[in-house]
């Protein structure tokens, strides 16, 4: 007998607020899908839907190109409070 999965149902935060387009300049929106090392968080952890994940990926990559957010945060490039960069 298949047991019922006990995962919490995740919702896409962008769907809830009905976002049509994610702008790369709006860092507050991107923040949700970034890890503390500024990696793009996978869909399975954030609960984003496919449509918004695709949008967010493109916007994050654009923001990286324009030096709004870093590509990597490593030991050479330590930031004490990484999200202070984004304000």
């Amino acid at each position, binding site marked *: 007998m298949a047991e019922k999965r006990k995962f919490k149902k995740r919702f896409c935060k962008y769907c809830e607020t009905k976002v*049509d*387009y994610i*702008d*790369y*300049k709006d860092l507050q929106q991107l923040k949700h899908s970034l890890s503390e090392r500024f990696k793009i968080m996978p869909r399975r952890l954030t609960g984003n839907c496919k449509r918004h994940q695709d949008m967010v990926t493109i916007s994050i990559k*654009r923001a*990286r*190109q*324009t*030096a*709004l*957010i*870093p*590509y990597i945060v490593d030991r050479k*490039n330590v930031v004490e409070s990484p999200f202070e*960069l984004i304000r």
Partner: protein
Amino acid sequence: MNCYETMFVVQPTLTEEENKAQVQKIMDVITNQGAEIVATKDMGIRRLAYEVKKHKRGHYTVVLFKGQGNSILEIERNFRINEDIIKFLTVRYTNTVEVAQFNKMVADFAPKEEVAKEEPQAPEVEATETQEA
């Protein structure tokens, strides 16, 4: 005619007037290509997320305009030549959702749009002055 957005970063070491001159230079290039500038936004001096040409800060400007696709080549060529510009990005807004966003941004920048409307007249005056000089 497509909707385009260009963001560029000018060196932070320039004075405000020099920065304005740089922005004006880019605007002139865009208008000379037959494109119509819809709105501009000055995002001010921001900290860069990583060093670009040894600079830690940069002066961001966003220009929204409508124009032909082949004009982008010329505009970007000018970005590359200019040593004061350390970063640039051009984004095209095509489908309905994106164009809606484009119009929304135009509305957001609206208070500056009035300034932008006045500016196209200003460069003409400046240009004539330089020619005279």
